[in-house]
């Protein structure tokens, strides 16, 4: 008996020494993603990515000797669900940080909850509104939508396009795209002739195409959306034989949208992170290694093509992990301060966070892309 007690004591001691005293419990990290629902093409790769990375991190002994417990909640793309899951994660699970939500509307809905409770939030949604005004605990990884708009306008300016029409899906993402494109257009001497919002579940837009086609002023169309319906406009435009340039948002960065759109989306132009063209980057590019490693790991594990959305989740968790490692303990305030001053090479670009910029990415994070033979390729203006 004495021997047993002694053994137990030794084992306990060793454990305490090797793990550090406070870290016997795993570190809880919550994630609110739309794994199902209309934006499942975004949320599913995000959830896959997080699961894959947490497995990797825990397999390598965790962070600072502490394992990660990942709690993924499926918001199905609904704001209301995102809010109740956020409350649950913060109040019941007492998570260290929340990754996601996938969508802009959901993120904006839980922003104040995280601010009040001092829970770190690293969103996978793209709108600039999330970090403007800056929330003390709120960060995000996708490139700002306002930057995507600028990137598109730059390309239009090069082509001498100055009268455009804008169609957006009736979602949080779409509304922000509408706001920014109307706001920024004048800086590039571009006039938005007509703006239309379509229902996220719209099935045909041929009457809209007829209307716009009849307006000979329109030189190009921007279609700003994250739902599968974004390919319908492309289809109806091509069927109507209207061949003005069609620009899509960075919400198009999943090859599944190309599968849905088929031939109709050949030649569309859209800004996106470099993940989609990782292999074609020069070896000297700072992101090359991160991108290729993530892409290969993801594609080997899930046997489906990588998407920029999974990349946003990669950046979210890896930024948190990098900060935790640097701090050396799971102290919310210290981790927050570290992220705020961090430089991080991720899939979305090279992040440079600052107290006034919780997004950290600039215009150079985008590359213009197009679709050729059913694949994403870098776009070269001719």
């Amino acid at each position, binding site marked *: 008996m004495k021997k047993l007690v002694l053994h137990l004591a030794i084992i306990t001691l060793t454990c305490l020494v090797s793990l550090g005293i406070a870290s016997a419990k795993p570190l809880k990290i919550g994630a609110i993603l739309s794994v*199902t*629902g*209309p934006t*499942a093409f975004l949320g599913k790769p995000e959830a896959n990515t997080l699961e894959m990375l947490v497995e990797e991190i825990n397999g390598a002994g965790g962070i600072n000797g502490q394992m990660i417990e990942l709690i993924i909640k499926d918001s199905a793309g609904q704001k209301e669900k995102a809010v109740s899951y956020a409350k649950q994660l913060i109040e019941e699970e007492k998570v260290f940080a929340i990754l996601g939500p996938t969508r802009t509307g959901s993120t904006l809905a839980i922003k104040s909850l995280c601010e009040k409770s001092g829970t770190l939030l690293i969103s996978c949604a793209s709108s600039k509104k999330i970090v403007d005004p800056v929330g003390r605990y709120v960060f995000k990884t996708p490139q700002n939508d306002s930057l995507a708009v600028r990137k598109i306008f730059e390309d239009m300016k090069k082509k001498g396009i100055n009268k455009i029409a804008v*169609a957006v899906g*009736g979602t949080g993402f779409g509304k922000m795209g509408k706001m920014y494109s109307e706001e920024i257009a004048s800086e590039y001497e571009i006039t938005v002739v007509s703006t*239309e*919002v*379509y*229902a996220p*579940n719209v*099935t*045909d*837009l*041929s*009457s*809209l*195409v*007829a*209307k716009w*086609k*009849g307006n000979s002023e329109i030189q190009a169309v921007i279609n700003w959306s994250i739902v*599968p319906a974004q390919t*319908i406009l492309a*289809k109806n435009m*091509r*069927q*109507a*034989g209207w061949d003005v340039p069609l620009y899509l948002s960075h919400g198009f960065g999943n090859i*599944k949208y190309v599968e*849905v*759109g*088929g*031939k*109709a989306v050949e030649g569309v132009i859209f800004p996106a992170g470099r993940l989609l063209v990782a292999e074609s980057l020069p070896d000297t590019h700072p992101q090359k290694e991160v991108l290729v490693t993530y892409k290969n790991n993801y594609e080997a594990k899930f046997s489906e093509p990588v998407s920029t959305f999974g990349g946003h989740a990669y950046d979210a968790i890896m930024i948190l992990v990098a900060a935790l490692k640097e701090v050396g303990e799971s102290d919310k305030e210290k981790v927050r301060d570290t992220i705020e001053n961090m430089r991080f090479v991720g899939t979305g670009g090279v992040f440079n966070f600052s107290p006034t910029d919780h997004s950290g990415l600039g215009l150079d994070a985008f590359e213009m892309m197009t679709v050729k033979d059913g694949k994403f390729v870098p776009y070269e203006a001719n």
Partner: protein
Amino acid sequence: MTAELFIQYIFAGITYGAIYAIVAIGFNIIYNTTGIINFAQGEFVMLGGMISISLLEYMALPLAIVAAVLITMVIGALIEVVFIRWLERPSVLRMIIITIGISILIREVALHIWGESVRSLPYFIGDEITSVAILGARISPQVFWVLGTCTVMVLLLGLFFQATSIGREMRACAANRTAAILCGIDTKNMVTFSFVLSAALGALAGCVMSPITYSQYNIGTGLAIKGFTVAILGGLGSSGGAIIAGLLLGIIEAFSVSVLPLSFQEAVSIAILLLILFIRPHGLFGSKDAAGLKDF
């Protein structure tokens, strides 16, 4: 408005209109034999599209469509036999709740089987970008498939009700159920048959429209609302009325885009539904006296 633009709008309108009309005729067939509105009608359309897309992996397109229509017919029959046949003199309200329940059930099962993803059948002729020029407007050949199929369906249906004995028995049921029973017509079988028939109509429509509109587990509800609007607009029970009302609604929706923002398109059809319910509840082409004699 140029002639070209006008034709472009018209075609956009009649494509929708034809689809709405088919859903409305599905409502009417069941309404005529049972006096109820089957709110699961939109789900038949969804099932037709989704089943044919799944079957496409194993067989050629025409076969897949035929098989999908047959399977949906069986589902239609099962629904009637399991949920409706055994009810003795059910109230209208009860029947409505039952059919709404069925529609939710089918949708959830579809979600379970096919998931959320958006699918579509390939275009029957050409592909996503093929189009034919008509007076300067460009129309996808699939639009003609939709219009052609709808026309053929309506003609066959008319023939069926006029020229076959089972069709005449169904009309007898519709005219006066008690008298039909006294004449030795098995009204229960007629009700089952009406479900099978409207399932077939819906499923076939679901197949031909799939390349244009895409198919997803939840498209049924929206179609049911539009079909219901059209059925009411045309006068419940009237197939001819449904066709005219369907085309009318489709064209109004299409042209509304030229004057109103696109986001009001749905509101236009709902506004029309409300107006009709207030002003002419028996529909544009229905008889007020006949409507007064029905329970619903």
